[in-house]
């Protein structure tokens, strides 16, 4: 088969946040005509960056299309060369306030803009590719996550590209939609189109791709011919494990032991919370939850189903439209965040920017809760300095000195700073800690992930009530005592961890009702 796209020695470096990241380091990659080529790797391995260099040229390296060297300076040039991309981060790729048609202007021709023409074209392409119903006049913010993703895929397809790039296209789609998508990809492949598929789901890569390229820390580890490799693998699982090992490059997580504990006291209870997102959409609908001491409640769900807004509403960082929050028998609805935190609530937000002040020192970042413990307007400097030394020691934060800015620390150590600070909150009157953690291991290396999970279990044993919000099913399944699944702002069901399997939780996450799953 002919090679349609060849990338040679591609380098791309990012500067910022205090660290230099070689996102792509001498990457060689080629794409044959009429193949599905999967690009796999951990978070931050450089997959999105690599396809990004096709639309915004790399720092160095050669890109050849059909054997001819080209310079792809901007997305429009790339579009004209026949490249189409569905990006991963839809908040950056779609304009929320515009309609679907206004978001897809790439096919407009001539000087004047004809929206009706585009709308007609959209409907034609939707029918042609069987992408389901979408009204081109609807504004993006009114769509669900899955619909937005379909718009993004449509946007890539509509210019009828020779090379189609899909960056995590299935993260928010339902199982049926995923099936349809891969049927469509196979059809396109048969028509001689080439497809680059970036995915987190290894089984998708193993089942549908022709070749797999694995990236690790910006470098290509290996390129596998899937069809040949399949003959050697005894089962699909073995293949997935083999690829996973290549991706991680070291042993994966070992099992954690969760000792049986009997929760007694209700620590925090939320009743019927409704909340809206920034766009005024109701994204949390009548959610109720109960957290007990010595318990980890896992809140599972594909991210963007209202988990973030629910946590913010609980902590009064976002205004709840209705509902109540009770902490140890006390109604704290609409109390200030400081008052809530002073009841012994600790919070590890998913967005690191909410938790860390990168320009301040490690010590100052560790003080964000404890600085206010003294009764006077003064800070107890010596005492606090001592506390931070202990935290750095206990949580094994690797820093040259407590006085260097957090910006200079690696991602894992930054998260350790947050974890150290929040896990050491001292609740009043010897009550148990209430700990709310959102995706605490997102983007961390294996060692730190393991560390954070162990600490969570230690906190549980010490009497903390923990709400673990995570879109990582493995994390939820290994850590939680009780699992609640959120879908489109609703709790689909609450399952005891003994009854929970990857399959039934997965179904709940996809919006299947509890009765159907357990019938």
């Amino acid at each position, binding site marked *: 088969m002919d090679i349609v796209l060849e990338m040679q020695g591609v380098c791309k470096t990012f*500067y*910022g946040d*205090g*660290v*230099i990241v070689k996102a792509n380091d001498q990457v060689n990659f080629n794409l044959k005509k009429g193949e599905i080529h999967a690009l796999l790797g951990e978070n931050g391995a450089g997959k999105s960056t690599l396809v990004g260099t096709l639309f915004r040229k790399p720092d160095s390296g050669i890109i050849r299309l059909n054997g001819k060297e080209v310079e792809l300076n901007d997305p429009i040039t790339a579009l004209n060369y026949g490249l189409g991309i569905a990006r991963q981060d839809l908040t950056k790729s779609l304009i929320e306030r515009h309609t679907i048609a206004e978001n897809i202007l790439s096919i407009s021709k001539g000087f004047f803009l004809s929206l009706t023409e585009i709308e007609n074209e959209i409907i034609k392409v939707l029918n042609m590719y069987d992408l389901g119903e979408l009204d081109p006049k609807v504004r993006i913010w009114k769509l669900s996550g899955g619909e937005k993703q379909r718009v993004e895929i449509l946007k890539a397809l509509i210019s009828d590209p020779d090379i189609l790039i899909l960056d995590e296209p299935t993260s928010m789609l339902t199982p049926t939609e995923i099936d349809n998508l891969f049927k469509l990809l196979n059809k396109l492949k048969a028509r001689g189109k080439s497809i680059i598929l970036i995915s987190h789901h290894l089984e998708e890569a193993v089942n549908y791709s022709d070749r797999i390229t694995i990236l690790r820390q910006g470098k290509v580890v290996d390129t596998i011919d899937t069809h040949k490799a399949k003959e050697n693998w005894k089962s699909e699982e073995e293949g997935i494990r083999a690829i996973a090992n290549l991706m991680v490059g070291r042993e994966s997580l070992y099992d954690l032991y969760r000792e049986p504990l009997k929760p007694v006291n209700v620590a925090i209870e939320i009743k019927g919370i409704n909340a809206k997102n920034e766009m005024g959409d109701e994204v949390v609908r009548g959610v109720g939850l109960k957290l007990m001491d010595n318990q980890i409640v896992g809140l599972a769900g594909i991210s963007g189903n209202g988990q973030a807004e629910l946590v913010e509403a609980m902590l009064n*960082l976002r205004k709840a439209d209705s509902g109540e929050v009770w902490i140890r028998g006390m109604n704290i609805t609409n109390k*200030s*965040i*400081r008052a*809530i*935190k*002073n009841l012994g609530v600790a*919070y590890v*937000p998913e967005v690191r*920017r*909410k*938790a*860390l*002040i*990168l*320009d*301040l*020192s490690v*010590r*100052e970042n560790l*003080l*964000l*809760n404890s*600085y*206010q413990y*003294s009764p006077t*307007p*003064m*800070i107890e*400097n*010596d005492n*606090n*300095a001592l506390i931070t030394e202990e935290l750095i020691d206990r949580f094994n934060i690797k820093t040259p000195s*407590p*006085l260097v*800015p957090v*910006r*200079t620390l690696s991602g894992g150590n930054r998260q350790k700073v947050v974890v150290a600070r929040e896990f050491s909150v001292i609740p009043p009157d010897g009550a148990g800690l209430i700990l709310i953690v959102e995706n605490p291991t997102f983007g961390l290396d294996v060692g730190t992930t393991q560390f954070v999970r162990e600490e969570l279990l230690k906190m549980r044993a010490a009497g903390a009530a923990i709400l673990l919000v995570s879109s990582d099913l493995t994390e939820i399944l290994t850590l939680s005592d009780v699992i609640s699944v959120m879908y489109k702002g609703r709790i689909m069901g609450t399952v005891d961890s003994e009854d929970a399997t990857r399959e039934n939780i997965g179904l709940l996450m996809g919006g299947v009702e509890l009765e159907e799953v357990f019938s």
Partner: protein
Amino acid sequence: MRIFHYEVFMQKRVSTITGLKAIRVRIFALFCGLTVIGIFFGFLGIDPIALYVDIFWVNILLFPNTLGRFITLLLISIGLAIPFKARIDNIGAEGQYVIGTLAAFGTSLYFSFLDPVLLIPLMFINGFIIGAIWALPVVFFRAKGGFQGADVVASFLMVFPAVFLMEYLVSGPWRDRETGFAYSSLIPEINRIPVLGDLKIYIPLLDFHLDFSSISFPMVNIKELFEGLSLGTIQINIDTIRWDFSPVHITIFLAIFLTLIAYYFIFRYVNGIPKTKIGYEINVIGKNPLAGRTAGMSFFKVILFCMIISGGLAGLAGVGEIAGNQFRLGTTSPGYGFTAIAVTYLGGLNPIGILVSALFFSVLSVGGNAIKLTKGLPGTALDVFSGVILFFVLLAEFFFRYTIKWRRV
């Protein structure tokens, strides 16, 4: 950006420049600024080297005047450093200063029945309160309005009502009927802030064996200069050169005391931690307001604190200037509030640095004023100093975070 065969681009530094190196960079920026100003004056037909030499000598001679100016700039700048540290851009210190001068004059007018021992402190209290009130709109627009930059707009716009109010009062109700110009009457001598003028301090170098008619200054004719100056409030006896400390009112002790207080409680680090909770909160809000909010800090309270201090200190500066130095109101605002922005940034938002940079700008201001008087430079020539230097100092702030790199393409 592409220039011929080179691609020039900005790059974020791995770590921000701080400490001694930052001071070196600021001083370098200062020299760049002075060079550019020199070029400007060169176009006006003035030898820049001679200009700076003269500024130096004039300041030696008029050191008390320099100190007088220093009081005002120091008070305003210390006040500015606090909101600047919290990333609240109070660029309207001029308005808060002007309203402080009005408060001082008004107090002396309407509370004249009080004993000076009560009246003078009352002036300061009123100046502080009214200055702080003048800064309050910034708090509400920034904290409740929810759009960034509201602080810049609101604080700047509040300058104009203050100046117009001053113009109205001085040309209307408070006008001194006996002068032809729009001036207010003088504050009665008994109600003025005590000055250091009685301490005649002996200058070892200057009155030893120097005959002033024989010193040749490149630009300034000393006799002319002194005659020019004696028209104003400063009286200098050329024959027995002594520093006359009458422009230095005792507000200087208040200013230095407040500087040290601000340093001790807000800016000082002990074991890498600020001394007070509010100092820490200002730090956090300034660097990452989102994290501060998530941790439970009240953005509103921090801004309120910063702006009350800032407006209050600018008000105090106004009181000191009017009741200790000028004694009467005019219709134009002198621009100290704007110069103070440059002072604050040159001082690196740190009280100790501001002590030095306030002195530096006082030197420029007094020297420039004297030369303006004798050489007939346009009145706005002085603004060139603070403007150009602020530009270069802010440029230095940019280079603390970024570098410019280029590569061949």
